[in-house]
């Protein structure tokens, strides 16, 4: 390896065969280039999706009932499940210290609200103060409903911005009375919602008031729960998944639902969805690796082919060398040395070029799902080391063949 004369020989052959060397190098360099770019994009996609989910940071768990599909303990399928206040209270009792925010909602659709001559049909959410936090509502004016409103079943109402525009136009809404189902409600606040107009055409009143006014008894439509923040994403996913499972078990038990009945109770865990995305990303990354490795294998096979042709072309020269006293090992060394040298140099060029591309073009990529594509430098170096070993493998078979060349056959005059 450190034989200067050997290097001399290599450089001489390379100098005399520029095109051949260039083509060999190109196949290897492009192999490495493609691999690194693929890995970079894979990492970028992962980063992009991580960012999307971190922005929301929503570890929201939504519980809403459905219709049973399985017979259980003598109860027929097709039974509609109705969640109750008791369910919600039981959850608070049992998991209160784990929960960050929580709210149950009693919903009434298409209720007519009158203000003076204006009227409209809207969705009414009877709920808890925490609902505003869970729904990410922003106050435009006034206040949200509070615990006093609930305790006293106050006839207070917070309306969405769109609803306010419908009924009040430019007029100030806070402090005014509206009629809902023949009952006077006082507007205490106006909110905006990131969900847009559809979510802003709602009226929110205390759940206690709603259940009384609309004959809801102690029924609830759904529950919103968030858990206290965890150290990192994986821990959050673990806790949240476990919590969902326990919650499901508890509610299914309370409502006599078969444990494997998937349509009677829906527990929607946003973190679990995120987790699924991450798993998908890992699969995509694996796929990229596969494609990249195949590319390199193709490159190595290419090098091996070219080296075989080189050996064939140099049969006579190798014969001469052997007649002059070249030992088989020195012939093997010569061919191997050339192939390793070419693959290593080409590999590094491909690596440098692709890293430069990622470095300078990567930050310019403004797609939602690709963010900051990078490649771990250790991974990159390892790739090149693998490539050099592959180059040695690629060169070995041709080299071995070269060593077997019989001078007497190589030197035969045609």
């Amino acid at each position, binding site marked *: 390896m450190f034989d200067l004369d050997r290097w001399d020989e290599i450089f*001489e052959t390379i100098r005399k065969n520029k095109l051949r060397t260039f083509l060999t190098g190109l196949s290897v360099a492009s192999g490495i280039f493609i691999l690194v770019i693929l890995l970079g994009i894979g990492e970028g996609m992962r980063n992009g999706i991580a960012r999307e989910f971190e922005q929301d940071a929503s570890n929201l768990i939504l519980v809403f009932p459905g219709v049973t599909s399985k017979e259980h303990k003598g109860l027929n399928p097709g039974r509609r499940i109705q969640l109750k206040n008791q369910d919600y209270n039981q959850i608070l009792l049992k998991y209160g210290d784990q929960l960050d925010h929580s709210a149950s909602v009693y919903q009434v659709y298409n209720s007519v609200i009158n203000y003076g001559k204006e009227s409209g049909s809207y969705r009414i959410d009877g709920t808890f103060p925490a609902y505003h936090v869970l729904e990410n509502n922003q106050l435009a004016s006034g206040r949200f409903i509070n615990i006093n409103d609930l305790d006293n079943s106050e006839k207070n109402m917070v309306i969405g911005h769109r609803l306010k525009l419908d009924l009040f136009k430019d007029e100030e809404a806070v402090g005014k009375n509206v009629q809902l189902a023949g009952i006077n409600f006082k507007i205490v606040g106006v909110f905006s919602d990131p969900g847009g107009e559809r979510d802003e055409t709602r009226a929110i009143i205390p759940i206690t008031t709603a259940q009384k006014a609309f004959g809801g008894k102690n029924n609830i439509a759904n529950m919103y729960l968030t858990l206290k923040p965890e150290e990192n994403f994986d821990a959050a996913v673990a806790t949240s998944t476990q919590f969902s499972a326990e919650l499901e078990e508890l509610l299914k038990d309370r409502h006599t639902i078969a444990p494997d009945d998937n349509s009677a109770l829906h527990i929607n865990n946003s973190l679990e969805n995120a987790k699924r995305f991450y798993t998908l990303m890992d699969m995509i990354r694996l796929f990229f690796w596969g494609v990249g490795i195949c590319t390199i294998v193709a490159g190595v096979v290419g090098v091996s082919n070219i080296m075989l042709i080189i050996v064939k072309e140099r049969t006579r*020269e190798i014969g*001469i060398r*052997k*007649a002059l006293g*070249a*030992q088989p*090992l020195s012939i093997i060394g010569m061919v191997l040395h050339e192939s390793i040298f070419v693959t290593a140099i080409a590999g590094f060029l491909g690596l440098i070029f692709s890293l430069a591309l990622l470095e300078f073009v990567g930050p310019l990529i403004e797609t939602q799902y690709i963010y900051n594509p990078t490649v771990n430098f250790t991974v990159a170096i390892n790739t090149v080391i693998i490539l050099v070993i592959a180059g040695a493998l690629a060169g070995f078979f041709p080299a071995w063949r070269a060593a077997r060349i019989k*001078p007497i056959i190589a030197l035969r005059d045609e």
Partner: protein
Amino acid sequence: MIKISNLHKSYRMGANSLHVLKGIDFNVEEGELVSIMGSSGSGKSTLLNILGMLDEADEGSYFLDGVPIKNLSEKQGAKYRNKFLGFIFQSFNLIGYKSALDNVALPLYYQGIGRSERIDRAMSYLEKVGLAQWASHLPNELSGGQKQRVAIARALASDPKVLLADEPTGALDTTTSYEVMDLIQEINDEGRTILVVTHEHDIAQMTKRIVNLKDGLIIEDTVVSQVRALSNV
């Protein structure tokens, strides 16, 4: 210098076996200049290949400078070729992308001699064959005679015991052939043992001894009075 006895060699060609050498007994003393003659198919090239350790005999013994040449490993063969033998070929067999000087220096490279000494020694041999000013030229920039003289310089470079020349003038015109033979005679005058395979009688007459091969046997082995090549140029 060379002692062979009862040398047999046959080649397998499919189902048939071709018996090429049928028991050759042959000795060459140091300083001799021997030509091996014979029509094509007489086995003269095979004999030369065996002498040159490029091929191995089936039967019989071969001693070169007292060393038995038998069952050599590739490695050993390469070492002996480098140390004992210098080859001169009909088609020169120079390496096309190496300069005349580098071609001459190649056997020294395989002896493990350092670069500067290699160049010095190769240069002195090029001077000896009168091509010092052509040292940096590639083979395809040289005439046939010049190429063969480079090849002779290369054969001499490793200071071998025996020079083996296979039709050294086969690809050259008469005048150039005689110039090359003159060089070979000069080298022989210095005491080097040389074997020349040829089928040309005038070339054979310029050696000191003619061995005639026919159908794998030596039919004639005569000492001749050497014709100096220079007198014919």
